[in-house]
C-alpha cells in the first residue's frame, strides 16, 4: 500500500488552483503553462477533469529514459533527476497518459514527483477534488472509470461503486 493521488472530476469546478499551486512549486511564480497537473475544461459537457501522472506501475517514462535519469522516490513517485536529464524527450513520448512534459525553459523533462509526499495541488484544491490517500491499487484511473456511471451525490456519500 502506498499513498496516491486520487482525482474526483465530479468535484472539480475548473478553477485551476491546482495548476497555480503546482506552477508555484516548479517556478516560484504563477505560470500554469509549467504546471505538472492540468485541468481539462470540457465546456460543452460541463465537465472539468484534472489530470496528472498517477505513478503507474509500468512506468514507461522510466523504461524509455536512455540514461536512467528517472527513479523512484521515498514517496514512491517516479522522479526525474534534473542533473542527469539530457532533455531528449523520450519519456515525454513514451508516457501513454501525456503527463510527462518537456520544459523549454530548462531544456529538460518535468513530471509530478508528489512534492515528496506533500502534494501542493491537494492542499490548494478548494473542493476536495484531489485527494492524497492510501490505496490498495495504484490504478485510480480504474476507480475513476468505475465512478463514471455514478452521480456526484453517490460519490459524496461514499457509496461503493
Amino acid at each position, binding site marked *: 500500500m502506498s499513498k496516491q493521488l486520487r482525482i474526483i472530476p465530479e468535484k472539480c*469546478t*475548473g*478553477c*485551476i*488552483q491546482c495548476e*497555480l*499551486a503546482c*506552477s*508555484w512549486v516548479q*517556478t*516560484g*511564480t*504563477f*505560470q*500554469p*503553462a*509549467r504546471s505538472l497537473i492540468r485541468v481539462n475544461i470540457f*465546456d*460543452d*459537457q*460541463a*465537465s*472539468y477533469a484534472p489530470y496528472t501522472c498517477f505513478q503507474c506501475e509500468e512506468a514507461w517514462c522510466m523504461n524509455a529514459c536512455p540514461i536512467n535519469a528517472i527513479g523512484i522516490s521515498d514517496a514512491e513517485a517516479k522522479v526525474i533527476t534534473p542533473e542527469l536529464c539530457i532533455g531528449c524527450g523520450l519519456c515525454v513520448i513514451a508516457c501513454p497518459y501525456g503527463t510527462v512534459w518537456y520544459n523549454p525553459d530548462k531544456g529538460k523533462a518535468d513530471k509530478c514527483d508528489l512534492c515528496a509526499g506533500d502534494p501542493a495541488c491537494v492542499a*490548494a484544491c*478548494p*473542493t476536495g477534488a484531489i485527494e492524497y490517500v492510501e490505496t490498495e491499487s495504484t490504478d485510480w484511473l480504474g476507480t475513476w472509470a468505475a465512478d463514471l456511471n455514478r452521480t456526484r451525490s453517490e460519490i459524496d456519500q461514499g457509496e461503493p461503486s
Partner: protein
Amino acid sequence: MICGWVGKVLRVDLTNSKISTEPLREDWAREYVGGRGLGARYYWEEGDPKVDPLSPENKLLFVTGPLTGTNASCAARYMVITKGPLTGAITTSNSGGHWGPELKFAGYDMIILEGRAPSPKYLWIHNDQVELRDAQHLWGKGVWETEETLRRDSGVPDTIVACIGQAGENLVRYAAIINDLHRAAGRSGVGAVMGSKNLKAIAVRGTGGVRLAKPREFMSASWEMKAKLKDSAVTAEGLATYGTESLVNVINEHGALPTRNHQATVFDRAEDISGETLTETRLVANKACFACTMACGRVTSLPGEASDKFSVNTSPRNWNIAGEGPEFENAWAMGSDCDISDLDAIIKVGWLCNDYGMDPISYGATLAAAMEMYETGAIDESVTGMPLGFGNADALVAMSEKVAFRQGFGDQLAEGSKRLTARYARPELFMGVRGQEFPAYDPRAVQGMGLGYATSNRGACHLKSYTVSPEILGIPEKMDPHVSEGKAEITKIFQDITSAVDSSGLCLFLTFGVGLEDMLPQIVAATGVDYDIDTLTQAGERTWNLERLWNERAGVGKGHDKLPRRLTHDPIPGGPAKGLTSKLNVMLPEYYERRGWTADGMVTEEKRKELGLPKA
C-alpha cells in the same frame, strides 16, 4: 518595476494595422492600483470625451490588475474601459473567466485598441507573436462558434478567446464582450464599440508567469483569505448550492424585486424563477472562474422538449447539452420585470444572450419598457410585429434574435429603453440612469441603491456600490433599507472601496466573505507597494473622482444624477415596502457634501488637488 505587473502595454492601431508595445506607466499603476483605476487614468489621457462612442476615434481598453493571474482567490478579473454607446459615459465593464490571466501570462498588462480595421479582423496573441488576422470567416457568427473555430484553427488548444457575437457586429447599444463562452464584460455596450472597430475577437495564449515582490508573504496572505472564505460554512453552502440566483426569493420577500417595468416590487411567481427551483430542476454543475474558490457559475441544461418549444434556433450549437446561467440579474430582467415566470425561456434567452453577445439586463429591461408601452397603447402590433404584452415568454425568446440581428422591431429595441421610450414620446417609462437600465433592486425599497444608481459613473449599476449588502444581508452590519439616513455615507464608502477592489484584479463577489483589509496584504505582497487601508481606499476615491471628471467633460456628470419620476414620486403599490418612494432628493446633497464636491455635484479644485488628479 513594481511587481504583480508584467510591465508592458500592447497598443494596436487597427486603422493602420500597427502593433507596438510600450512600458506600463508605473507611476499610474502605483496611484490607481490597476484595472479600473489604471484604465481610467489611461483613458483620461487618451480618450476624447466628445467622440461618438462608435467612431474610430473612440479607444477601447482591456486592463488587468496586479493580482490578476495570481492564485489569490478570484484573481481572474479584467476591466474593459471605453465610452459606452448606451450611456455616453465612461464605462467599466468587468469580466472573469480565464482571459485576463492569460493576457498577463502572454506578457501584457493591458491592451489599447485604436481606430477601425478596414475589414473584419481578430487579434492573435501568442506570447511575443501579436498579429491582426483576417476574420471574414467569423463575421456573422455567434460567440460560441467563433471561440471554437479560433481554438481549433489556431492549432493552440489552450487559446483563450474574448469576442463579440452578432449583437456587437450589429452595434446593439448593449452588446457585450464575451470570453470563455459565458463570461461577459456585459454592460454599457462595450461589445458594440469592439464591433464598430471591426474587431471580432482577441485570442490569447500565454506561457509566461506573474512575478511577485514578496512571494512568501503573498502565499501566506492568499492562504489566509482563502481560509476565511472557506470558514464560513454558510458562504460555502450558499455559493455551491444556489449561486446568485438565491437572491430572487430573498429580494422578493423584501418586496424589492422590480416587476412589470418597476410598476410593482413583488412578483407572485418568484418561486418559479428562483435559485431553489433552478437548482432542483436545471442545474448540472458549478463552474469556477480562474483561481476562484467559490464557483458561483451555474451550468444548466434544458432537456430536448424544454428547449425545442421555442422558435429561435439560429445557433448551430446543440442547446441540449449545457449553457450557463441564468444569474440573478438575468432571471430578474427577463423574469419579473417582464412578468415572465417560464424558467426555461429565461435560461434559453440567457444562453442566446451569451451567444449573440449582449447584456441580458438591458435587453430584459428594454423589453419590459416596450411591454408597458404596448399595454398602454404607445405602440401596437403594427410596430412590434407580434403581441408584446407582459408575460409573453415567446416574445422574449423571439425578440432576442431580432435585437441581435436588428430585424424588425428588434432594431428599435437594440437602441436601449431610453431611446426607445423617447422615440414614442414616453420617456417617463425609461427605468435607468445615464441611459443605462436599472439592475434588480427597486430603489424605493432599498434606499441606498437609489443613491448608488443615480450617482454611478457608468449609468445605473449594482456593482459600484452594493448597499444591498448592509441593507438586506446585514453585512457588515444591518441597515434599514427603508430609510435614507446613513445611506450617503455608506454609498460613498462602498463606491470608493469597490473602485479599489475593481482595480486589484480580484472579483467583487469576494467582498461578502472578506473585507478590503483581507485583500490588502496580497496587494502589498504582490506589488511591493506599501499601501495601507487608507491609501488603498483613497486610490479608489481617486478613481471615482477621475471617472466623474471625465463624465463632466463628456456632458454626463452633474445634472445627470437623477432617478425616473416613477421612483421618486409613485409610491410602491403593495407588499413589504408599500407606500415608499426614493428619497434621492434628501440623500444627494449629503452625498455631494461627503464627496467634498460643490452643492451641484462638481468635483472641486480642492478635491482634485487632494487626490492628485490630473488637470483637464
